[in-house]
């Protein structure tokens, strides 16, 4: 009798513990999601109120004069992403193919170092590009150095290891028999890779690239000492260029209310740009799965 009661009591305690434990986890989930939704909700709500056509099509006004917009910053961000992709995508994809094709000490070393590169804080990458790109250019051509090119290089350094890892993983998912079959037919490794393997893995590759672009689109710290910012409209690669993250940083910390609302609008636009890249990555994957 007594032991039966004890058993029942233990069972009851265990059930209660079960409920408590699970509720704590659920509570944590609700809290975490709520906190994050608070952030996003605030930006979407205030950003939406602040966004208008003028804001997208005008450049900034002299500081303290109400009005003006984020045109320079939006275009600048797109230019920086284009430059970064032009450098980072070929290098990252090729290095990823190398990883997929080769084994050996060198490949392992590169993989290890790519992981190291991936963990370098982005501000340190900014410092590095400042030291090896901006300063030498300024030494050669006085009054130059800070440039869209330097900003793009900084972003591409962040992209390369991400694209490399993604490429490697995706290529390794392509069935080996495709590779072997192609080689057996007498195709070269080059032809095999670019006519057989890459087309088979195309969707995955594009997904990886899109995610890498989305990842660097919001980077601010590496642009501080490289792209620098520009108050006038510029798309030249050899001149400083404005960007959304930098303009958000300066506008949000400023005392002017009209600049603060521009910062919120800028945040919304930046998040939408990132969302477009991530969504298109998702859609590419889905399409390829259906095919």
């Amino acid at each position: 009798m007594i032991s039966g009661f004890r058993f029942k009591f233990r069972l009851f305690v265990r059930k209660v513990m079960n409920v408590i434990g699970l509720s704590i986890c659920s509570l944590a989930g609700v809290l975490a999601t709520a906190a994050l939704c608070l952030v996003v909700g605030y930006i979407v709500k205030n950003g939406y109120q602040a966004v208008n056509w003028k804001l997208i099509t005008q450049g900034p006004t002299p500081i303290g004069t109400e009005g003006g917009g984020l045109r320079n910053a939006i275009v600048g961000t797109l230019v920086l992403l284009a430059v970064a992709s032009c450098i980072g995508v070929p290098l990252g994809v090729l290095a990823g193919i190398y990883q997929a094709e080769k084994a050996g000490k060198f490949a392992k070393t590169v993989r290890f170092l790519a992981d190291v590169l991936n963990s370098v804080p982005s501000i340190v990458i900014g410092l590095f590009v400042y030291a090896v790109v901006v300063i030498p250019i300024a030494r050669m051509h006085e009054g130059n150095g800070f440039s869209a090119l330097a900003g793009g290089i900084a972003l591409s350094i962040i992209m390369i290891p991400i694209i490399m890892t993604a490429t490697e993983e995706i290529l390794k998912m392509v069935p080996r028999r495709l590779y072997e079959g192609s080689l057996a037919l007498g195709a070269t490794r080059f032809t095999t890779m670019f006519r057989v393997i890459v087309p088979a893995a195309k969707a995955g590759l594009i997904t990886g690239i899109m995610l890498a672009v989305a990842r660097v689109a919001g980077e601010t710290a590496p642009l501080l000492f490289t792209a620098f910012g520009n108050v006038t409209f510029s798309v030249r690669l050899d001149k400083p260029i404005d960007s959304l993250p930098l303009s958000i940083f300066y506008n949000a910390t400023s005392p002017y209310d009209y600049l603060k609302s521009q910062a919120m609008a800028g945040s919304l636009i930046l998040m939408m740009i990132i969302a477009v890249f991530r969504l298109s990555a998702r859609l590419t994957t889905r399409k390829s799965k259906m095919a």
Partner: protein
Amino acid sequence: MKTFKTAALIGIAASSVLGQAQALTGAGSTFINPIMQTWIARYRQATGVSINYQSIGSGGGISALINKTVDFAGSDAPMNPAEMQQAGRPVLHIPAVVGTVAVAYNVPGLGQGLNLTGPVLADIYLGNIQYWDAPQIANLNRGMRLPHARIFVAHRSDGSGTTFIFTDYLSKISSEWSSRVGTGKAVHWPVGLGGKGNEGVAGLIKTHPNSIGYVELAYATQNQMTYCKMANAKGRFIAPSAESGSLAAAGVPMPADMRVSITNTSNPNGYPISGFTWLIVYQNPARGAEIKRFLNWVIAEGQSFTAQLQYAPVPENVRAKLKAMINSIR
């Protein structure tokens, strides 16, 4: 792959087609930024030449000039001998405007016109005075209701000419300040919060009740902030303004290289925390013609925009000398 090639081609094509004449890049003082951005807009209207000026702080401007990443620097602190040595080539300091540093505060219920003296201000920034109702402040402001609240001290986190003018003044007025902290574009602050740029400090003051900080006057007036009247060397309480700034600059003997401090002026109606903002260029820069043209415009037409932004123009008698100086640029 094709997409990227196309993107690259479009990028290159766009940069060559759309790239307009951008003659000069400058950086530095946030103190001068409001009028500099006005100048840039007007100069572009007048000449079609666009200029990029980034307000990263005077220290940043001087550093960028030394590293030759910009064509000109804006600074409220003259370059010191060590910096001039690093620059390697002769530099010119062209005074562009006179500005005043407003000691702004945000105390709920307290209106415009708090009186402060230099020593009291130094004690606040040294952490010796911690509450708004401290007797030192109360004695200067009889009849004002000061709250018993802690003072939030705001200062610059970046290398700043505004800081230079401010600490230069405090060093002249307080021996404890000059021995413990000293004068510089960036100093070791005993207390307070750091904000980046005049913008950042003004932002801190606005978001923090019971705060005090120092910003260029235009930032204070544009943001409807309240600011102190400061006691000058003659004991009069003077509010910062274009006039009190220009009185501080009037009659100061200008040395040949134009590097001069005008803080703690002896003019009875002058504001004690005033200073020149210089545009600093190499005497033999890479884009000499463009720089000459812009600087000549700044000291002539440019001076007419000073009043609306509460800067004082460069004194008339100095401008002739400046003209000769600018024309010595090769």
